């Protein structure tokens, strides 16, 4: 420790601390421009100069480390003069256009000139014309305002690993700009915008809309991916104008965001939002009052219940909605309708993966927090395009890897950003991650590299595992996985000897070829090597959905009451019955797929779908359409008139994330506050309120008056949420389990013991993907891209300027054979259906595969995906039979939207006819 005195105040700091940081600890304010909390010291602006006793020059305090006994003065006349000079020089060429600058009101230059500058300049003002980039989507750069602090250059390199900008030219004409002065073409995370101290880089969406000082920041959680970044929605009136990432002890994103969080909010103000409840009358959806809508639904459900029993009705809850909404939804289905037919999209990939974790460790949740990655020294990323799906978590991985603290082994069949930074990239064939993991474990056991102590004291089932891995040796699996045996052996040795290994696996729609088996095999690996139950080691499944974990926690699962408490357990059910004051069904209900099947088969008569669009997000679009068509009563509660809503008998307009209060539980079990920033449009209501009023319309009062009251009930009913209170969430998110109000929450699970005592390894058999027959030579890889989240963000104008349409990726070798070029349109034909899409020829995807993003409604990828394999393995292997080029006219004639419209017309006609013949039925509502 060194002792330093600054302005007469003494402090002890560790060796290596800069004078600036020591001053900050003393609460001494030293002005800075180029310094940034998350960047290496740069020392270029000289605004931070101080005087050091015993020397006669001034030091840049942001780069100079403290020496023992140093005496520093931060506020002498000389220092003041030097700072004035810096500002004076900046102002000689900085244009004085504060009134039109988007940064005005929070500009560091403005503030510092105000505080430290003088009211005249000795050098006059020099006009220089530099470039203004009007062409980049989302972000604009006005080089005239740039003070060359280099924060953007460095943040884009050090944090973002993009390197979009650098200093170009030299001397007076120096600018910061992209290569060859092209418009920006990058990840559009906007980290540079937030880091820019002046108005040189700014949001195009924000500029010239509102002055910064009139905006009110509302702290909330990003509604897009599973990371759950904390952000400020900056609002005025009833409009969101700007978004900034929040960096404090209560946030888990260091103030960083991705393009979705920063620019995706525009969907909120989209003119297509539905703002009135609607009921279908004579085939048309017509606006009604809320009471009429409730009444219509209540009578519809009553009718189904009396004719076919409560289990003829089912509900799909939402991985997007809050915990409170999800909780009330399942409560409505169970306590009011009286059925366990309640499920969500988590059924496709994510929940099966969690089940694997429960079977191995006893808890269906990620074992470690995302921040815990900073303690890992090896990261194994399996089929995880983390920088696109869970961007800010991806930044944590890149940071750990680029700083040399961790090795990265990426197993990914697509070439993505993380594979570029991986020490080892195993480009295994799609759908073979289980074989790959089994091989790795086989090597570890064969070479005796397992963590013997851990295996002995905390693991059971090892012998069966060992037995099952005969034949899984990498030499035998080379053909299957496409990875050289030696590469796998080396990876296995690295994993076994690393000490602290975190395994990342992306599940669900973003990564259709991972599922229960992948997670189970990964859990085996973690157990065998002792990489679970400690800091820096565990398994973190990732999701593209913001609240998929919460949705499952809340019991939107056919077999579980809230908190994964089985509906079949009499004791638990009795307790819930006592609390809710009703009798509850005791048999597991139909899951998401089961409901679609039952509806298509005519057994399920009615459905209530909240915040989900099965027509675009569930596998087998054709089957879903069939199911929706057959329903007597379909209630859709959403922000937009989704494809599914087109089939609805009742449409209820609901508010979205920035319009409501509540909580989300992110992909690492962190429960975080969602806050209302603006009022929802028109007659739109919050989901929790709709559900409460709907219950009342059916004669059940749940006694809820606000979203936060729902949280109160949740914490009573779910033991691992028990210690979470709204007051605690004000400050920071809390990782469950948090059983008591004084419990800090749990970032790392399974210290010392597993809930079930021992961790269990289980043999996982590898099933080779059923594609690659002669008839189906290509494998479909549905997935996500950086610039979008579900279909929601396609309603954000800005993000669409970056990615407005689906682009399929085809490997050059296939493209050559098929005579395809980038920007051609193709028709993809699978066993199930047809979809048409634009192609890009790229080596990102492996030969024999076609990657198609799932965000765009005009390219319904789920039309290609069948049910069978989903049901069997939780996976969606899809063989593509044909890829053919299509011409523009033919394409237009048969667009999916046209086809869909036709289908809707058909149903409407049918319903009208039915009504005419038999008088108003259930769907007529009278």
């Amino acid at each position, binding site marked *: 420790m060194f002792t330093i005195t600054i302005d007469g105040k003494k402090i002890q700091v560790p060796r290596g601390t800069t004078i600036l940081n020591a001053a900050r600890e003393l609460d001494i304010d030293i002005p800075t421009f180029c310094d940034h909390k998350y960047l290496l010291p740069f020392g270029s602006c000289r605004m931070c100069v101080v005087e050091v006793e015993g020397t006669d020059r001034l030091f840049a305090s942001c780069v100079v480390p403290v020496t023992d006994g140093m005496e520093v003065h931060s506020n002498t006349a000389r220092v003041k003069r030097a700072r004035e000079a810096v500002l004076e020089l900046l102002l000689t060429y900085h244009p004085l256009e504060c009134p039109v600058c988007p940064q005005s009101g929070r500009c560091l230059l403005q503030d510092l000139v105000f505080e430290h500058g003088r009211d005249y300049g000795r050098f006059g003002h020099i006009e220089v014309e530099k470039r203004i980039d009007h062409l980049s989507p989302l972000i604009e750069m006005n080089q005239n305002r740039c003070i060359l602090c280099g924060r953007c*250059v460095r943040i884009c390199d050090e944090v973002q690993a993009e390197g979009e900008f650098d*200093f170009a030219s030299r001397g007076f004409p120096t600018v910061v700009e992209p*290569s*060859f002065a*092209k418009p920006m073409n990058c990840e559009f995370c906007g980290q540079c915008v937030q880091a820019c101290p002046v108005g040189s880089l700014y949001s195009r969406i924000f500029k010239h809309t509102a002055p910064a000082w009139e905006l009110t920041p509302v702290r909330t959680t990003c509604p897009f991916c599973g990371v759950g970044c904390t952000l400020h929605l900056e609002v005025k009136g009833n409009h969101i104008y700007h978004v900034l990432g929040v960096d404090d002890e209560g946030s888990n994103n260091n103030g960083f965001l991705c393009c979705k969080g920063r620019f995706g909010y525009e969907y909120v103000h989209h003119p297509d939002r539905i703002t009135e409840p609607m009921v279908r009358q004579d085939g048309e959806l017509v606006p009604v009052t809320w009471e009429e809508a409730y009444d219509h639904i209540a009578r519809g459900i009553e009718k189904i219940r009396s004719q076919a029993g409560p289990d003829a009705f089912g509900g799909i809850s939402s991985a997007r909605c809050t915990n409170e909404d999800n909780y009330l939804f399942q409560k409505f289905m169970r306590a009011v309708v009286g059925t366990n037919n309640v499920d969500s999209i988590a059924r496709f990939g994510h929940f099966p993966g969690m089940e694997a974790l429960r079977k191995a460790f006893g808890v269906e949740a990620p074992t470690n927090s995302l921040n815990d990655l900073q303690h890992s020294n090896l990261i194994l990323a399996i089929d995880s395009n983390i920088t696109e799906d869970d961007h800010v978590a991806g930044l944590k991985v890149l940071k750990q890897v680029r700083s040399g603290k961790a090795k990265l082994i990426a197993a990914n069949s697509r070439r993505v950003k993380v594979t570029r930074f991986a020490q080892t990239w*195993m480009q295994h064939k799609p759908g073979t991650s289980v074989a790959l993991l089994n091989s790795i474990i086989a090597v570890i056991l064969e070479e005796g590299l397992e963590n013997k102590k851990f295996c002995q004291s905390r693991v059971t089932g090892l012998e069966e595992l060992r037995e099952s891995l005969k034949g899984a040796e990498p030499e035998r699996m080379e053909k299957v996985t496409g990875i050289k045996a030696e590469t796998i052996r080396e990876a296995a040795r690295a994993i076994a000897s690393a000490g602290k290994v975190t395994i990342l696996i992306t599940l669900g729609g973003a990564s259709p070829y991972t599922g229960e088996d992948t997670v189970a095999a990964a859990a085996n690996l973690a157990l065998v090597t002792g990489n679970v139950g400690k800091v820096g080691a565990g398994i973190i499944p990732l999701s593209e959905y913001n609240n998929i974990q919460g949705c499952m926690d809340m019991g939107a699962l056919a077999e579980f009451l809230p908190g994964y408490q089985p509906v079949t357990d009499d004791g638990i059910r009795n307790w819930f019955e006592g609390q809710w004051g009703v009798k509850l069904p005791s048999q597991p209900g139909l899951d998401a797929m089961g409901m679609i099947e039952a509806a298509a088969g005519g057994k399920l008569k009615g459905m209530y779908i909240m915040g989900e669009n099965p027509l675009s997000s569930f596998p087998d679009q054709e089957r879903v359409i069939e199911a929706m068509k057959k329903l007597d009563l379909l209630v859709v509660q959403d922000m937009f008139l989704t494809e599914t809503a087109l089939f609805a008998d009742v449409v209820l307009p609901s508010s979205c994330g920035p319009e409501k209060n509540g909580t989300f539980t992110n992909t690492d079990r962190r429960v975080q506050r969602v806050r209302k920033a603006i009022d929802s449009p028109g007659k739109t209501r919050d989901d929790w309120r709709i559900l409460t009023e709907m219950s009342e319309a059916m004669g059940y009062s749940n006694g809820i008056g606000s979203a936060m009251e729902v949280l109160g009930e949740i914490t009573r009913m779910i033991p691992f949420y028990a210690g979470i209170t709204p007051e605690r969430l004000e400050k920071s998110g809390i990782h469950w389990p948090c059983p008591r109000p004084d419990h800090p929450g749990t970032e790392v699970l399974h210290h010392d013991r597993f809930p079930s005592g021992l961790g269990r390894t289980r043999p996982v058999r590898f099933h080779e993907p059923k594609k690659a027959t002669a008839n189906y030579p290509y494998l479909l890889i549905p997935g996500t891209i950086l610039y979008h989240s579900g279909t929601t963000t396609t309603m954000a104008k800005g993000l669409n300027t970056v990615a407005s349409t689906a682009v399929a990726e085809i490997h050059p070798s296939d493209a050559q054979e098929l005579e395809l070029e980038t920007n051609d349109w193709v028709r993809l034909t699978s066993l199930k259906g047809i979809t048409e899409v634009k192609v890009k020829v*790229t*080596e990102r995807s492996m030969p024999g595969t076609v990657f198609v993003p799932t965000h765009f409604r005009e390219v319904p990828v789920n039309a290609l995906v069948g049910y069978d394999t989903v049901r069997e393995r939780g996976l969606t292997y899809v063989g593509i039979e044909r890829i053919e080029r299509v011409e523009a006219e033919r394409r237009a004639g048969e667009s999916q939207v046209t086809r869909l419209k036709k289908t809707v017309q058909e149903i409407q006609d049918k319903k009208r006819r039915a009504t005419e013949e038999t008088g108003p039925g259930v769907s007529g509502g009278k």
Partner: protein
Amino acid sequence: MSADVTLEDVKQDAGIEEEEEQIDLAPVHRIIDSLKETKGMLIPVLQDVQTVYGYVPEEAANVVADRMRLYRSQVYGVLTFYTQFHLTPRGRHIIRACSGTACHVRGGKTVISKLEHMLGIGHGETTEDMFASFEKVACLGACGLAPVIMIDNDAHGTLDSVKTERIMDNLREMDTMKRAE
């Protein structure tokens, strides 16, 4: 397997459309292939590239960046930092006019305006017909002959407006003849 990223890939990542007129990039690859170690070799590589093309085309700079695992903006930064690099094709003749002190006081300004007028271009520009590129430079080290210009590798001194015109007319004539051959 290695995590090598091809140019094609990065280009597509960046969404950069192929130019209509394609430049043969094989020489760039050869230059880099010939290196044992790429570390610290950026400037020599760029110099070699410039020797091949006469300037550093954007596509070539991108190949250099991608293959040497540098950000493209970084390479661009280096290219713009050093005046020795040219990012656009240069004329068949390089005309450098001195704007140093000695030349300035002895009428260099008139010479420069004459040249700019005759060529119809300013500092750092190239005539449309690729006849010549024009640059103003600091002291050429021949102050005794001020005002001085250099045409390609030859110095011409004690100039005035008339003399300049004559020299330029000669150059144009020679150039035309040479091209006719």
